[in-house]
């Protein structure tokens, strides 16, 4: 037998490097431009704002890596926040409230999974429909009026509490990041998810149970969104009918900026987290620069274009080099 070639050990994913550099640049730029931006308290504000995009973005990373899309995430955030509000007002114990909200999210995810597998409806269409239906339910139930008065101390902890210096929602997010990173990179579930995104036929040919993985991924997505929904209700001490609307766009933006390929087969958990923080930093930073915050959308959109164009250029170059 020939001598085995020695391959270098993996050190650091280049794809994560790009987003980190981008983030450092943005952060440094804002710090120089506005002295008030760079402070621990502002940084904490910015991180707390990033929590929701990060959690939903983590779920979206699984979905998009699989070559799918889940547009219903914002509505799941909304409806689970609404359910949590209703149950808190009805005097249910917090533990049970959280459990029910998470269950609702998971069941909605399960239904999405059923629609895209057994019913063979395209991801975009199926989740567009559930997005609309769920939001509709929220309006019908609440008649468009927010539920106020969720300010019970043991419920408030979830969105407003601190563990030492660490805000509880940030702590929850950190735990979720670890779980997602593990699931995505170190389990068969993660491998199979990305494999389906890379080549669904090939995945089927090696005996992967495609439909099971798809249902699991959508259920996971629903579950994550309901976690975000509960935190949102707790933080705002209210269940607002519009809660979570537009989150799908932020989540997709964070995922794509973080280096996950929209066509599937390639995903990056850490990249998504940085993408979420980047979006939140831009929002926060613009307000310090005395730029009308209405420009937010323009800047975030520009960032999406820049990162994707950069990604396209580099990957095309590496393919050209290989040929």
């Amino acid at each position, binding site marked *: *037998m*020939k*001598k*085995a*070639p020695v*391959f*270098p050990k*993996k050190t650091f994913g280049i794809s994560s490097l790009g987003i980190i550099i981008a983030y450092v640049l943005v952060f440094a730029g804002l710090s120089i431009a506005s002295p008030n931006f760079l402070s621990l308290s502002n940084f904490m504000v910015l991180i707390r704002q990033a929590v929701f995009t990060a959690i939903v973005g983590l779920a979206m990373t699984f979905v998009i890596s699989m070559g799918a899309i889940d547009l219903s995430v914002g509505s799941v955030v909304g409806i689970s926040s609404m359910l949590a509000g209703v149950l808190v007002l009805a005097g249910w114990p917090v533990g049970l409230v959280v459990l029910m909200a998470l269950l609702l999210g998971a069941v909605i995810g399960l239904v999405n999974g059923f629609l895209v597998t057994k019913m063979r409806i395209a991801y975009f269409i199926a989740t567009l429909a559930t997005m609309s239906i769920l939001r509709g339910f929220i309006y019908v139930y609440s008649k468009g009026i927010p539920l106020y008065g969720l300010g019970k101390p043991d419920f408030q902890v979830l969105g407003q509490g601190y563990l030492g210096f660490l805000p509880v929602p940030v702590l929850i997010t950190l735990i979720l990041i670890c779980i997602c990173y*593990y699931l995505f*990179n*170190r*389990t*068969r579930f993660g*491998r199979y998810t*990305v*494999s389906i995104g*890379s*080549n669904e*036929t*090939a*995945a*089927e*040919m*090696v*005996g*992967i*149970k495609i439909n099971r993985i798809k249902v699991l991924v959508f259920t996971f997505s629903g579950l994550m969104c309901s976690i975000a929904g509960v935190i949102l209700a707790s933080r705002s001490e209210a269940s607002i009918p519009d809660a979570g609307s537009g989150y799908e766009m932020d989540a997709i933006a964070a995922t794509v900026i973080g280096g996950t*390929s929209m066509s599937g*087969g*390639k995903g990056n958990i850490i990249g998504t987290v940085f993408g979420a923080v980047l979006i939140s930093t831009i929002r926060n930073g613009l307000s310090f620069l005395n730029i009308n915050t209405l420009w937010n959308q323009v800047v975030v959109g520009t960032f999406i274009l820049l990162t994707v164009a950069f990604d396209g250029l580099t990957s095309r170059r590496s*393919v*050209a*080099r*290989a*040929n």
Partner: protein
Amino acid sequence: MNNDSCRIAEKANNGTRGVAPILELRGITKSFGPVLVLDKVDLTLNRGEVLGFVGENGAGKSTLIKIICGIHEKDGGEIFFNGKKTEIRNVTQSQRLGIGAIYQELSIMPDLNAAQNVFLNRELSAVGEGLFVPLNSREMVKTTRRILGEDLHVDIDPTSPARYLTLAQKQMVEIARAIYADKQIIIMDEPTSSLGSAEREQLFKVIRRLKERGHSVIFVSHHLDEVMQVSDRIMVLRDGRKVADETVERFSVDRIIQEMVGKSLQSQYPKEIVPIGEPILSVRGLGRKGSFEDVSFEVREGEILGIVGLEGCGKNEVIRSLFGCVRYHEGEILHRGRKISVRSKREAMNEGIAFVPAERKVEGLFLNRNISWNMTIASLRSFVRFGTLMLGKERDATQRYVSQLGIRARSPRQSVLTLSGGNQQKVMLSRWMMTDPDLFLLEEPTRGIDVNAKTEVYRAIGDCVKRGKGVIVGSSEEEEVLGICDRIIVMFGGRISGVLDAKSVTTATIKSYSLNIGGGSIE
């Protein structure tokens, strides 16, 4: 059109008598980064000539073709068209010169019919011109019917949607498109790789017709016997240099291989002598409605069983039914004497069956993922401890198979997209070797890979049987099956028409059985 073709034919006759060749390349060089891919290559193509163009993968063949088609730009050298110096800077220029390429991946729109495909982007309008004027469908159908029927002698309904056409028919539509556009030079890149023998003969007939009509054809193929059969002249490229360019009479398949490889090939088919053991899989009276019936055979330990037959004979379906890709309606499958059911791929895998599909890139590889990912995906369970993937263990296993099968790669994390076809196929074999199966099902294991790599794949298959595995090879290359198999099953019309001992038959015998004129065992 008819007048045109007469004129072309006349020109063709003149062309062979000392008039400038239609296309001439002189001293073409091209490099990608530091790698010199083409080194002062000359190419001459005369009117009404079929030029066989061969070389191993990586010899620079496709780069030269792409320069002619205007996809790549040359670094140096000159191009003459009809004796006049020209530059080909982009695809449009190449097309305007009358150069048309027919690729492996056909560019036929499945929902348009044959006529619409022929006239794609060249539609005839009923009145006026422009993007929004009504089309003259009747005229387009009429012209298409004439080209297909009178010029090519093929029987295709120009009004039926292309998705109902066979691959061979789609190819004909594409050739019709090239004829309608009056392409003087038609480049065919591996046109036969997905065709059955009868369809190949049909294609060769059409190529001869094209020649008579004065078209020039550049025929690129790995199938050297076909190149010999269809070409007037053969040009061999090796490592970016032209090493031979002579009329076909001066070549034999062996000589072409020698020129391609640069050394004489000891044996293209290394055959391991392995003792044949107990039966692994027995198939009894297997049948599937409208596809195959009454198929019975046995594969034993250490045995390589070949299944051959024309396109549509049912061989692929039989192989796929053993892996749960295709349902069978009657008969039974026994694994080491025990009756098994393979309703799903998982079930088949659990029985120790491995399947390498012919369409590597479509059904096999995760192209944007790396070697390691592609190798371990079917056996991930064995790399899991406490639910966690052991990445170190995965890397070690990958490394072991990379060196064992001689996969040329920089790292186990290199994307499989960047590997050559041969190395990709070795990755596929490694994937299934890692599952430690009892039986390998290989569909066209060497399709589209070059001569040297083929031999390495055969060697890898030999390794499998040496470990007491059984192998079933479904192939449309009779020679390959003769070279590596112990026994050969020939199928015709969904039935087994002959079971042959590989040591005592010739390709001619196999051919006659696959046309069911060999005094087969049925009827």
